[in-house]
């Protein structure tokens, strides 16, 4: 395995970590199942590709622009989620994924089935940055995304999102505007998916509608669930594991997908809270107990455990 190969894998893993963390804002914190996250990944990629190629934006300007556009379209899905709930919403998001990919595929503006070619590598100080520095750039954005998620999980808005996940009626009765927070959650999650899309487009330098189809959405959801939904370490480690897994399974060649599917079944069946989630086997082994117990013991005021 050459260094260049490892850099490529590393970049993909980083992009998947951003995607999984961003979906976690919507599904893990706010509890809204979205099975169409790849669509926003695609919106980010296409927006950035078109802005740099047709409008002449630089990478650094296209990046925030693509995030904003993906975020706005995500907010639209948030508005839909106010009306369509639960499993209806889950299936609707599959549909949204389909429709958006169809738009990419059948409109000449988006390059049709052949996609968009010749996307530029980002320039820094007038120089094309190397693959290795691109990996560093992706890594930087992974840290930014993870920090943002950490901030959310510790902030008032994070609490508001969690209450919506737990019980919408009770959240409303506690004075929280569920509609507003759902839209915000979708906007934030989709904006970061857009970021991942930008990073993908400028790394691959050519994108096709096929890169953003429903199976990609499912991969993102699977990474999140296998890692441990609702935490930060879960999506990161889940994405790391499952993005690296196909590479690790390479020696199995012909049996790769068989093992991949089998592992998803096995892990969800025996660690349904996720491999690195709240009650995970690995966490218990490492800390001797689950994290919440460890944490609350430190903070206990008095009284005994039931």
């Amino acid at each position, binding site marked *: 395995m050459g260094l260049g190969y490892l850099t490529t894998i590393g970049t993909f893993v980083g992009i998947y970590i951003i995607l999984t963390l961003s979906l976690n804002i919507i599904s893990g914190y706010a509890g809204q199942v979205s099975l169409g996250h790849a669509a926003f990944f695609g919106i980010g990629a296409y927006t950035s590709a078109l802005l740099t190629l047709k409008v002449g934006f630089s990478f650094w300007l296209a990046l925030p622009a693509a995030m904003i556009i993906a975020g706005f379209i995500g907010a639209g899905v948030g508005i839909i989620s106010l009306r369509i709930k639960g499993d209806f919403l889950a299936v609707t998001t599959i549909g949204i994924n389909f429709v958006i990919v169809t738009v990419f595929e059948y409109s000449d503006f988006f390059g049709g089935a052949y996609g968009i070619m010749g996307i530029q590598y980002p320039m820094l100080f007038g120089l094309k940055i190397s693959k290795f520095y691109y990996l560093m750039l992706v890594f930087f954005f992974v840290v930014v995304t993870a920090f943002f998620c950490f901030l959310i999980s510790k902030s008032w808005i994070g609490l508001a999102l969690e*209450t919506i996940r737990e019980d919408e009626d009770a959240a409303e009765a506690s004075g929280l505007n569920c509609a507003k927070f759902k839209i915000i959650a979708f906007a934030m999650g989709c904006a970061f998916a857009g970021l991942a899309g930008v990073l993908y487009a400028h790394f691959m330098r050519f994108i096709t509608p096929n890169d953003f189809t429903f199976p990609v959405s499912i991969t993102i959801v699977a990474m999140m669930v296998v890692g441990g939904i609702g935490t930060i370490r879960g999506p990161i480690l889940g994405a790391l594991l499952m993005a690296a897994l196909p590479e690790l399974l390479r020696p199995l060649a012909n049996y790769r997908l068989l093992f991949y599917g089998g592992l998803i079944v096995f892990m969800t069946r025996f660690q349904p809270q996720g491999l690195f989630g709240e009650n995970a086997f690995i966490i218990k082994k490492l800390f001797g107990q689950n994290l919440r117990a460890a944490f609350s013991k430190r903070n206990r005021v008095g009284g005994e455990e039931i």
Partner: protein
Amino acid sequence: MTPILRIEDLSKSFGGVKALKTVSLDVGHNEILGLIGPNGAGKTTLFNCVCGVFPPESGRVLLKNKDITRQPTHRIAHLGIGRTFQIVKPFKNLSLERNILASLCKDRTKGLSPIMFGTGLKKHRQEVLRLLNLVGLEEYIDQTPMTLPLGHQKRMEISRALALHPKLLMLDEPFAGLSQEDITPLLQVIKNLRSEGLSILLIEHNIPYVMELCDRLVVLNFGEVLCEGTCEDVQSDSRVIEAYLGS
């Protein structure tokens, strides 16, 4: 003096069934008003109409003379009505601390202000402890509601409603399904709240506790106010006995 809550001619129907027919009632200052009536009389529907869960067809709801009819639920919570649910609805996987903090969110998540990304939740631990202390649950602050018995969960809901600093507390069957050892502390909690000056609207089926707590009673039957008055008046009213036992 204007009442805390005034309900004027409230009507609501579900697919042709009239759940509420021009119901009017007042809850006075520092008063515990009991709302009783047979199953299906429309008590919880009345609660939900007041709290904005679904809009009434006609009539008005006034909180301290301010019209709150058809406001969204969270607005009504901001304006000063705290409520509990007939079937408890705690935030199951969050610690009691975060359950209570949820009600404190309202001041910090207005509009789109960046304060909502503030992380000063820990600073409010004393306030949360005080609120849990009101219902005698401060020792469970780090546990999740799932690990607590039903009685504790119901008290937690009261504490969560109190965190809104409500002008009026609405309790939907607080004693239903509780054992005697859970009931005694809950009775005490409600009495304490009243002595601190809170007004309470209470739905309850357990008549002995209603008699012990309430200053006045309103009896609802088939969506209409059957009678209202002091506990003694209502107890001796023949229509009430008829409604409960059937004619």
